[in-house]
Every structure is written in C-alpha cells, then in structure tokens.
C-alpha cells in the first residue's frame, strides 16, 4: 500500500473525511499515479471545499504542568508554510550568515537545501505529526495538528 493511500485511509478511519471524500481522494491518487494518463479535467470531481476543510489548519502546542503553569499556543499552518517559503527568498549572503549563526548555536540546519517542493512535503508530514510527553514530575507536553 502506498504512503498516500495509507494516509487517506487513516483520515477516513479517524473520521476526518467521509467515505465519499476518501473515494474521491483515492480516485485522484489513481489518476495521478496512472502512467501516461491524459489530463482530461480536474483530478477531484465536484467541490473540493469539504476536503480542504477536513485538513488540519493549526499546529497546537500545549504544556500543562502540575504546579499550575499552562502554555497553549495555536499557530496557523499557513503561517508555517509562508515562513518556510520566505526562507527560499532570502538573499544568499544573508542565508550564509543565517546558517553560520544557526550552526554556532548548535542547530546545523542548511536552509539552502530547503526547496519549495520540500516545504510542501514538510508541511504534509507535519499534519501527521503528534508528540506527547508525559514527564515524571507531572508535566505534560503535547504537539499536534488539527
């Protein structure tokens, strides 16, 4: 089973999309993967609005601790996407300085390698991400998209 197909079936199982929407997505996937298939129109028939609405839109970061510290952050994924796309427009000289500064602070991320197509893939992967940390002292950290 391909990764995309598994993702669609997962979304169906989690109730994020209806069976009809899943069928449309699977059809679209088959159309996309079919060899030399002629482009005879849009891959998804009908109104794509409900499908888009079913996709996660926000990145949530929640921290709840036993001593009463609570942090709740909700970041639009569109902001993450735009921010990452902005990095591809930073002038090369500034980008080199940025990379040097990042590596000095222990973060060896080369933003020159971040291509627009990778950004879309990264955001897609982010949608599937979920982090749950339950510390022994009662602190609870949760990062997820919804």
């Amino acid at each position: 089973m391909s990764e995309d197909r598994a993702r669609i079936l997962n979304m169906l199982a989690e109730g994020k999309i209806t069976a009809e929407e899943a069928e449309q997505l699977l059809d679209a996937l088959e159309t996309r993967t079919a060899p030399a298939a002629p482009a005879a129109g849009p891959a998804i028939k009908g109104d794509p609005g409900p499908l888009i609405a079913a996709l996660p839109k926000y990145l949530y970061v929640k921290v709840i601790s036993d001593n009463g510290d609570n942090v709740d952050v909700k970041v639009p994924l569109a902001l993450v996407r735009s921010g990452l796309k902005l990095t591809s427009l930073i002038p090369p000289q500034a980008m080199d300085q940025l990379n040097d500064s990042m590596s000095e602070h222990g973060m060896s991320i080369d933003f020159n390698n971040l291509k627009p197509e990778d950004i879309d893939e990264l955001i897609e992967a982010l949608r599937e991400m979920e982090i749950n940390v339950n510390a022994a002292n009662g602190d609870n950290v949760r990062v997820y998209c919804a």
Partner: protein
Amino acid sequence: MKLWPWLLDLTFGSPERERPVHLWLPLFLVWPLMVLVALLAFVVTLPVDAVLLLVGRPYHHYTALVYRTFALFSELRGMVVRVKDDETKTLIDMTVY
C-alpha cells in the same frame, strides 16, 4: 494575499495587579501605514531587481521577499498564545483576528 490581521485581543495579568488587563487593539488602524511602507519598499526593490536582472545576477527577488514578508503578516490571523502561571498569577493571553 489574505487580509491582514484586524484585531488583537490581549489580556495580561501580573501578581501586582488584582485583575488582568484586557485590551482590544485595532490593528486595522495600522494598515494604511503598512501599505505606505510596502509601497515605499516596492519603489526601492522594483528598480533594484530590474537592474540585477539586467546585469545578470542570479538573485533578483527583493520585491518577492518584501511581498512575502507582508503576506506572512496576513497569515498571523488565528494565532493564539496563552501562558498562565497559577503560582505567580501571571497571565498572557493573545489572540490575533
């Protein structure tokens, strides 16, 4: 490009204050200033990009950089930041509309 944020709902409390302060900041009042700044920036970046393109320099995207920066600001809508400390009675609550 989407509409820029038009309202900032800000609540903050500290141990010194008995009740938290709640503010609604009308960000739409800053829009004309931002449009002005954007126009001034484009006046500079467009000729610079044109010259860089004509000279054959590989990087000539300053206009796109400025445009994307302003577009990034519009994506702030819907962002929520809440920090609450029951022990010290500190509260920061920020929602961008």
